[in-house]
Structures are given as C-alpha cells and as structure tokens.
C-alpha cells in the first residue's frame, strides 16, 4: 500500500517515502544496509544529489543512519519512527483536509462514525 504518494511532492521526499514504505513492508529490514546513494540514483535514474537529500532527511529523522565507509542502514527502530512520522503527518496535514471535505459535503457525523467503525472491523 502506498501510504504517502503525491506526485507534486519534491522528488527527494518521494524517494524518502518509498524508502519508508520499504521499511514498513520489511524489504529493508531494521539494522540492515540500504542501497548506496549511487545505487539508488542509478536504479531510479535520479541525480545523486537528490538521493543524498533524501538520505539526509531520513537521517535527521533517525529513520536511517550512516556507518562511515560502510553505507547507510535502516535504524533499529526504523518502523516505529516511520509510523510515528506518518501519524503526525496524518493528524496535522491530511486529517484537516478530510474534515474540511466532511463539512463541505455536510456529511452526518453519526453516519461517518458508523462507517469508520465498520471499515476498522473489516481491516482488523
């Protein structure tokens, strides 16, 4: 599931998101090496400076870390950090947009809550 895809986001954030997705679905296991900047750039056909920005950004969030001369690794608690970052983004950016839409469409709150609990039941 792509949780955070937005084609108007800067490319370095789109790359960060795709790395986060891969951490969440265990393609990049915690404490394991992720592709080097050049490998990632060559895979995607993206300028290495852009990939470097993605890695710097994820480093600043402690989602990945860098072992000098060895490469970049997913942090030991990378999954937890990705989830809390996405949760914050959902609460602060995405939810207000949804709420605006609920208001605009005059959706009944009881009806909405019933629908949400039903969806939650299906997913669990």
């Amino acid at each position, binding site marked *: 599931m792509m949780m955070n895809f937005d084609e108007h986001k*800067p490319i370095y954030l789109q790359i960060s998101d795709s790395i986060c997705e891969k951490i969440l679905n265990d393609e990049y296991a915690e404490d394991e090496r992720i592709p080097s900047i050049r490998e990632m*750039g*060559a895979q995607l056909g993206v300028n290495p400076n852009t990939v470097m920005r993605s890695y710097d950004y994820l480093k600043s969030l402690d989602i990945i870390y860098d072992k000098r001369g060895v490469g970049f690794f997913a942090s030991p608690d990378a999954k937890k950090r990705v989830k809390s970052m996405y949760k914050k983004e959902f609460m602060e950016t995405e939810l207000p947009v949804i709420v605006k839409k609920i208001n605009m469409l005059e959706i009944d709150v009881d009806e909405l809550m019933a629908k949400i609990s039903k969806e939650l039941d299906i997913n669990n």
Partner: protein
Amino acid sequence: MNMVKMQLLSFRYGKKDVLNDISMRLEPGKIYGLLGENGVGKTTLLKVIAGLQKPWNGSCSVFGENPFNRTPSFLSRIYYLPEELEYIQNDYSIRFFAKINGPFYPNFDNEKFEAILKEFAVEGDKKLNSLSHGQTKKGAIAFALATNVDLLLMDEPSNGLDIPSKTLFRRIIVEYVSDNTCTLISTHQVRDLENLIDPIIILDNKAVLMNASLEEISEKLYFGLHSTIPTQALYSEPVPGGYLCVMENDDLGESKVNLEALFNATMQHKKRMQELFVANAAETSAPSLRPE
C-alpha cells in the same frame, strides 16, 4: 572550486550575435542541464568551453586555462560529445574507435566502456556506418563516459534514442559518471532528462537567466495544481485536473520542480527570474568581475 569560469563572454558568427555577455561558473561533481530555445547558442557555448570556438569578447577559463589554446593536457581532461555523429560513422567499429582514441585520455576505463556497451546492447564489433543512428549514439555515449574526464560536455545526447534507451541513459549517467566530473548536458527535451539534471541553467541570447540547483528553485518558486488560476501565478498551463501554476514561493512550501513549466515561466518572465536567481549569484561573484 570552479571548473569553468565565464565572464562577459560574447560570440558572433559574422555579424550575427549568438552569445552576449554570458557569465557563469560550473563546479565539479554536478550534472548541469543547459536549457534554452533553439538558436540561443547552447551548442556554441559548449564549443567555446571545449576550445573549438574562440570567444569574440570576454573570457572563458577551464581548469584555469584558456580552452582555445588546446594544450594536450587540457584536451586529455575534457570530452565533447556533439549532437551530430557523422564524424564517427565510419568504416570501423566502436571498439576500434575506442582503441585508437582511448589512449588520449589517461583515465580511460575499458571495463567501464564494455559494461556500458553491454547495458545499451550495442554491437561493439559492427561497423559504425552500418549501425542505426540510435546504436551509434549509444556507442559514442559509452566512449564519452569511459574517458573519465574532469569535464564532460554532451550536446542533446538523448536525441535519437528510443524510449527505453532514454530511461537507460539516465541510469547509466548516474551509475558511470565519476564523482568529481562536471557534466554539462544541453537539451531542449527536458522530459528526457527530468530528475537527472541539477543544477539547471537557462540560457538566453543576452544572458544566463538562471543557474540554480533544484533545491534553490523549489525554495523560490512553487509548482502546484490549482482548480482556478491564482492571481499571483507567473505562469499556468491547463492540465488534466486543473492548472499547473508556477508562483513565487512566499511560504507555500516545497513542491516538485516541473522543468517544462519552469522553462516556460522563465521565457515569459525573463527579468523577474534573473532578479530571483542571478541577482544573488552576481553578488557572490562580484569580485571576479574585476580583471584578474
């Protein structure tokens, strides 16, 4: 550190002005995209840097030398891949071409050359005059990258490549350009090179309108999809879902730089773009405008 330093450079073909008072600097380790409308002098600019044309006025210094002196040491550090490849389409193969031309470049890497030929699926032993234009181009790109020169100039390298090869071209550039090489790629097909080129240089007959990293561009300009055109939009174009608008970025956040929209916005607002992007550059490079 600058690899290329151009100051108030002008060039004329006979009485026809091509470049006028062009100033710019290029640094190692970057993949510059040189954009400009047809006829603004992109190719001429590359030729001046390569030492193939003599500026009419102003100066161009590459590795601290005047390129037009074409010293052997200068020529061994630079490679110019022209758009038209007739000169290479001869009665020999790309492997033979590499065998006779590789020795001029001290860092020529034959393994890299073979690896790129393989990735591009070029028949290395077939005579170049019997290969298609696209295959010849791929062979020439393989040679250019394998020279491992400090300054790599490519004029419209994606021209003549089919769609899968264009994707491959971007990957190959990222994989094989050496860390400290300064790469300058001219193009009028920005979609071919989207996500590859950064910084972006936009050239006009009379000036460099922009020489900025994508990071700087996204700080100063905002690219967004809107259902109606905001009054402050510098440029807008209808796209499925609304209008793609370019605006000055007053706290609008980061967005993805769309190169075509950037180019079109720049063509419509040359002066403003120069103020936004070159004014700073002029300040920081002001001392160099004095004679050295």
